[in-house]
């Protein structure tokens, strides 16, 4: 992986508030064009990290780069969109007026800002509300507007802190589709969310923090794959020793065994046909053979519990 492939790189990024730890030696690599899920319990340090990245908090130590520039350089934020967790906007303005202000701050021309504003408002379903004052917006509409505001300049990197917290299920589905469409266009999305189901549906990579420390990181598919555990449902009772011998013959080990169920650990998925063949050979009658899947929730609970035990 070359440096050009990375849009975020943090090395031992740390934030302390007096004696309290916000983030502790966080090392992250986020690849261009990926949706990166950043997970953790409440108060784990997720928002602290995002605030350091977008310049709202100064790191205590460590370093970080964003789009090739150090995060202390305000120009690094030129290609970045940000939806804060506690989103609030100048409620005495209309969406078009506020986007015009952001366009000026971004150095966009008036014509470009007007066109981009209409596009992003349409993208989040607010095309009909462009002349209403923001104070008339519901919380969900304000969150949609926040996403539109973050998208105004067509950012290369988008930080979204709990982007669907105020949305109904339909709105959440729309935002998921939007994120996938953005990824397809090459935008990198850094997604802070408590909603693990949503993260699982859209993210390519995830990292989990707890008490300010990084406890797990990697490609979502790899993390969810985990060890190869096979569940076998039996229609008839079988002799435990015979079944165990059959499992051992293909290099596996029995994790759980009951009258009607067998849970087996294998070296890899490619060993599943051999396992089935060995079980048939000993006359085991099976109704289901399935690889056990981890969910993001089970992974999350597992790694945060391990971190606490450690």
């Amino acid at each position, binding site marked *: 992986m070359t440096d050009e492939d990375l849009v975020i790189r943090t090395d031992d990024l740390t934030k302390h508030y007096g004696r309290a730890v916000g983030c502790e030696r966080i090392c992250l690599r986020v690849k261009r064009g990926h949706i990166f899920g950043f997970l953790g319990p409440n108060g784990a340090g997720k928002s602290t990290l995002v605030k350091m990245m977008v310049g709202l908090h100064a790191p205590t130590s460590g370093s970080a780069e964003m789009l090739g520039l150090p995060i202390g350089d305000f120009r690094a*934020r030129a290609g970045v969109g940000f939806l*804060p967790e506690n989103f609030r906007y100048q409620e005495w303005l209309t969406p078009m007026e506020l986007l015009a202000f952001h366009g000026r701050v*971004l150095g966009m021309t008036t014509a470009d800002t007007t066109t981009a504003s209409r596009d992003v408002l349409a993208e989040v379903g607010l095309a009909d509300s462009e002349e209403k004052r923001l104070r008339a917006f519901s919380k969900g509409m304000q969150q949609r507007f926040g996403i539109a505001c973050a998208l105004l300049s067509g950012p290369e990197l988008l930080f979204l802190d709990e982007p669907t917290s105020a949305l109904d299920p339909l709105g959440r589905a729309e935002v998921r589709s939007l994120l996938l469409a953005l990824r397809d266009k090459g935008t990198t999305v850094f997604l802070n969310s408590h909603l693990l189901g949503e993260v699982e549906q859209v993210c390519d990579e995830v990292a989990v923090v707890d008490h300010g420390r990084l406890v797990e990181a990697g490609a979502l598919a790899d993390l969810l794959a985990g060890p190869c555990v096979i569940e076998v449902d039996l229609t008839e009772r079988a002799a435990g020793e015979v079944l165990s011998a059959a499992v051992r013959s293909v290099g596996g080990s029995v994790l759980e065994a009951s009258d009607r169920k067998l849970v087996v650990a294998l070296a890899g998925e490619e060993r599943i046909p051999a396992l089935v063949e060995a079980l048939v050979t000993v006359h085991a009658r099976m109704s289901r053979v399935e690889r056990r899947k981890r969910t993001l929730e089970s992974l999350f609970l597992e790694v945060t519990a391990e971190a606490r035990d450690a």
Partner: protein
Amino acid sequence: MRRDDGLSRVLAVAALTLREASRRKIVLVAVLMSAAFLALYGLGLHYAAVQLLTGGRMGIDELLRRGAAAQMLYIGLFPASFIIALAAVFASVSTISGEVESGVAYAVLARPIRRSEVVLGKFLGLGALLVSYALVLDGAVIALAAWQIHAPVRLWPGALALMTLEPLVLLGLALLGSTRLPTLANGVLCTAAYGIGVVGGFIEQIGGLIRNDTMVQLGIVTSLLTPLDAVHRKALSLLLPGGLLFGQGTAGVGLGESATPSTWMMLYAVGYVAVAVLLATRVLRRRDL
């Protein structure tokens, strides 16, 4: 196409600040209440004019008439200064702290904009508003007094310029406080600073009157902390001929050339505003939001 233009960002923040004042009806209320104040003051002047302009004789009566007219002008300028000062405090105490407390600041400061540009933009926007307000309100009071009772005004452009400096001093202080203090605490700070400035002016002028150097020095030290009353007295000394006015400070007492602040004090007041804005940018730059 994109430009990396700090001035453009500063002006964008200034324009947004002005628009906020307009949308939040600050301008409308200020205009209506100032119109009511000026109407009442003009009515008072109208009835005073009947006595001052038609009942006079030659000699000592002319001197008395000029003194009374100057006093009537002062009576208009004192509350005008008070109204402008309060407007400066109310308009600016929450300008940064309020946006941080509500979360409005996050989306803006995460943009490619320096925090110093935000502070400068806020100062320019609010400064333009307050300078305009001081010019209109103080200018209207002076014009009314000159027209209705022939108040003996002189050097009024310089006086008006100094009167616009008064709200800028409070704006600088409020902006600095707003970068660190919660809104209510900053409001208390700025209002108290205004009160201390007035009392300091009072002590200095009484000290000058009774020839008490300690009181004069105390007043000068107070002026260094909040040079509001000093600016006001200097403006009045430019506006009105010496010896006519019984009270030439916001404290309402004091007199004579000894109580007139120096030009150096005015330069100090300008520097005070500049340093306050610089400190505000420094404090905000170092703050975690």
